């Protein structure tokens, strides 16, 4: 729990010594070790390590939760945070938004460890840098390639939560993010191709993420595709069928299903920042969100999923739940506080970005369940369409209706076959209409992640995962640059 020699951190003793004047107290310790390694054009570009640690003290006073966090882990430091939390909670309770009880903080006991095959201590910095130098060399297919990079962000996170009512939760996360990027340039045209779009390749995983052959293969592939894009025609301006690959479905499901279903957005907490939601409380159980082929789950139990855990930060035990079944909206993303405020059932999704933020309603893994179609048959079924992949641009309104997404790479589908590569593929639509045009879902799925899902005031960037199939939509407005 502590990387430093000769340092003792006895949170249980500290908790026991905090004065018993409040209804309930919790200490949540979080440490996060992050390693960045970046190689550009075969040269070492960035190597940094960071170790952030602190505790959040949470108190319940007169029906209001108060929070005080500190990076001072001495007993006096934690005591002083406790006093501050009590003082502010007492004053704030006169203006509280809701009267909460200990029911919103179950005394859960348990542990969680990310599923990994090879420990992160089994790969050295040197090995990673060597692979990355080789990968950026493998990207050098032509003089037209002007920039090549390979980056990783490795995070090892530990959380320990103990409360005066007996909660005792210990969770350890091992996360690897890899990001390869190639930029090609010729005659005033520039195209960048990445390995599945920005930082999407992000999983709870161990050193197996650094398999040399797999990484080199992916490096070569994106370099070839960057050159293809340089020579490609612009994406047509048209309305046609689009087949979306999982690395773009990730973004589609994130922005137009995940966020609008968050209860704190529906309750208006988020209205000054990310926005509200077109979804109303009475839509649960009624709204035909998508076509009957659409089945969406909240699943924090997905192996390797970036948003997997056993308990959320309120101590609510995580479990898989259907959010949308056969196209009908059933349930939203809200932890115990939002469930009490809305009087709706929810999920274990009360999460904070670290020790220094209070938990809010978040996604975990928001997945689309597999369908029955083979990807080859899906392509065959399309007369004229676009196979589109890897996000590069995203924008959606504050009610989560009107979206516009840009991707890196697409292929035309003509008479049931993949033909020309096209550059600058973009599409736009409105959420419910879009999901109702879903007409085929593949039987295979792939997992990606969003490593910095931003939300909340104060702001919080959190990791969420998406495991999705290939999905085919009809009559979508597409356009190029």
């Amino acid at each position, binding site marked *: 729990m502590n990387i430093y020699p000769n340092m003792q951190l006895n949170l249980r003793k500290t908790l026991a010594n905090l004065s018993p004047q409040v209804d309930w107290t919790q200490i949540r310790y979080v440490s996060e070790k992050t390693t960045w390694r970046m190689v550009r054009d075969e040269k070492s570009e960035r190597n940094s*390590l960071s170790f952030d640690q602190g505790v959040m003290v949470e108190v319940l006073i007169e029906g209001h939760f108060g929070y005080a966090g500190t990076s001072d882990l001495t007993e006096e430091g934690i005591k002083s945070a406790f006093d501050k939390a009590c003082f502010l909670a007492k004053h704030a309770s006169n203006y509280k938004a809701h009267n909460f009880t200990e029911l919103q903080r179950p005394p859960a006991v348990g542990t969680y460890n990310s599923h990994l095959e090879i420990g992160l201590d089994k790969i050295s910095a040197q090995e990673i840098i060597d692979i990355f130098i080789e990968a950026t060399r493998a990207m050098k297919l032509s003089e037209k390639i002007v920039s090549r990079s390979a980056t990783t962000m490795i995070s090892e996170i530990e959380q320990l939560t103990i409360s005066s009512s007996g909660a005792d939760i210990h969770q350890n996360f091992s996360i690897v993010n890899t990001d390869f990027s190639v930029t090609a340039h010729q005659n005033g045209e520039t195209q960048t191709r990445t390995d599945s779009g920005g930082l999407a390749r992000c999983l709870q995983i161990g050193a197996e993420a650094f398999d040399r052959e797999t990484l080199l293969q992916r490096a070569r592939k994106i370099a070839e595709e960057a050159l293809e894009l340089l020579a490609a025609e612009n994406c047509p301006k048209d309305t046609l069928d689009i087949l979306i690959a999982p690395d773009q479905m990730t973004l589609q499901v994130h922005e137009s299903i995940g966020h609008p279903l968050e209860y704190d957005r529906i309750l208006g907490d988020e209205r000054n920042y990310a926005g509200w939601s077109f979804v109303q409380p009475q839509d649960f159980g009624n709204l035909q969100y998508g076509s009957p082929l659409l089945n969406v789950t909240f699943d924090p139990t997905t192996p390797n999923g970036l948003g997997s855990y056993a308990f959320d930060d309120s101590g609510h035990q995580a479990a898989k739940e259907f959010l949308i079944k056969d196209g009908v909206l059933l349930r939203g993303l809200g932890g115990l506080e939002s469930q009490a405020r809305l009087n709706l059932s929810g999920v274990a999704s009360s999460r904070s970005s670290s020790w220094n933020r209070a938990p809010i309603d978040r996604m975990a893994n928001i997945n689309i369940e597999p369908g029955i179609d083979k990807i080859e048959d899906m392509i065959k079924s399309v007369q004229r369409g676009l196979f589109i992949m890897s996000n590069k641009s995203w924008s959606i309104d504050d009610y989560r209706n009107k979206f516009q997404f840009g991707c890196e790479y697409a292929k035309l589908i003509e008479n049931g076959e993949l033909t020309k590569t096209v550059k600058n593929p973009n599409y736009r639509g409105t959420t419910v209409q879009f999901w109702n045009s879903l007409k085929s879902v593949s039987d295979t799925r792939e997992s990606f992640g969003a490593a910095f899902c931003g939300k909340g005031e104060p702001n919080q960037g959190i990791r969420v995962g998406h495991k999705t199939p290939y999905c085919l939509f009809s009559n979508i407005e597409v356009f190029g640059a």
Partner: protein
Amino acid sequence: MNFAEITKENFNQISNFIIESLHSGEQANINLHAENTTFIRFNNSKVRQNTHITQKSLTLLLQKAGRSASVSFSISGNWIEDKIRAQYWLDQARSECEILPLDPFQVAIQNQGSSDSNLKGHLLNDSEVFESLIQPALGSDMAGLYCGGPLIAANRNSLGQSHWFSTESFFMDYSLYDGQRAVKGVYAGTQWHQEDYVNKISTSKIQLSLLNRPKITLEPGKYRTYLAPAAVAEIAHMFSWDFLSYNSFKKGTSALMKFGNNEKSFSPLFSVRENFQLGLNHRFNSMGELAPETLELITDGQLKNFLVSSRSAKEYSIPGNAADNHEAPRSLEITAGNLPESEILKKLETGLYLSNLHYLNWSDRMSARITGMTRYACFWVEKGEIIGPISDMRFDESLYDCLGENLLAVTDFQEIDPQVSTYDSRILGGKKTPGIMIKDFKLTL
């Protein structure tokens, strides 16, 4: 001792220890971030969550034998603990330098001088803060965030360089709602004056009542448009993202590629610069280099400078201008023009008055095209008269158009857009922007 004084003592103790522990051939650059912040989140003019945060962290850059290793770690403020941490991370940085390849663009640590700035603020105290913030908003549906407290950035290095910047600042970033109609406001500074806050909220309440007319739904198309300073600030926010950075220009990913290569131009009415005289940020960057007080970036539509870090300067053999490593503006100003506030509606004649924009992203970097949404108080104007609020629309617009030949006028006034981002920690900075009048603003959905 107050928070800043205690933190200064912590910082001096740890940085002295690190600098004194260096072996021959080692140089260190050390940065501090510290804050002691009260955050209060409001919904429906009630307190949704309140959090107090004390956080201090140090970043050490160690240079040794041509290698560079960077380590960051939280500190407690307790010397016995922090000494153990400093020793541990200095050792880690040394081990990194053992295994890392040469850093080809390493910028040697130098003594770039010293500075010491301590801004005393007047902030709401913890016992009055809730009532002071809520009372004026009563009768309306307010959502938002108050953030206040000391905020410190400091830098030292092993060659004697030393910079300290501490401030006591606040912002109240809020929206007032009436059903789905909403207006946005921000009150920020270092001196809290309750009557200014009360006035600000009352103005927002009046603005909100102006939205109380039937909504007008527009068709996609091109519109003559006025973008208020806060909307222009959203566009200026994109200037931090692969735009003014020389490194992204050289890597081919900057949205200014065509401008930098003289294939595209901006209007002579458009000028943008870094201006540290705004007092929103300190001049030293994370290497302790002092940025010029002002740095012209684009003047009268002509490229003057990209932002160039010393690292890029070394890589591309050109002079640097003390930009930070990510080469994003730290104190950006779009300069004012000559359109007076009283003339805006008259000059707009018929078209859109947009107070705010939302969720911008590059839709095509090479043509500097941005997509995003209208948000908050946005109106349809006919013959110089506000007719009513519009339903939110998506736009997709190239900067080469709206800041190029379609730019009709720039207001003679500007507004400060305070930095309200709080990811991981509070940050210093902000922008100053005017309003702009453009033709053929492209709405798409």
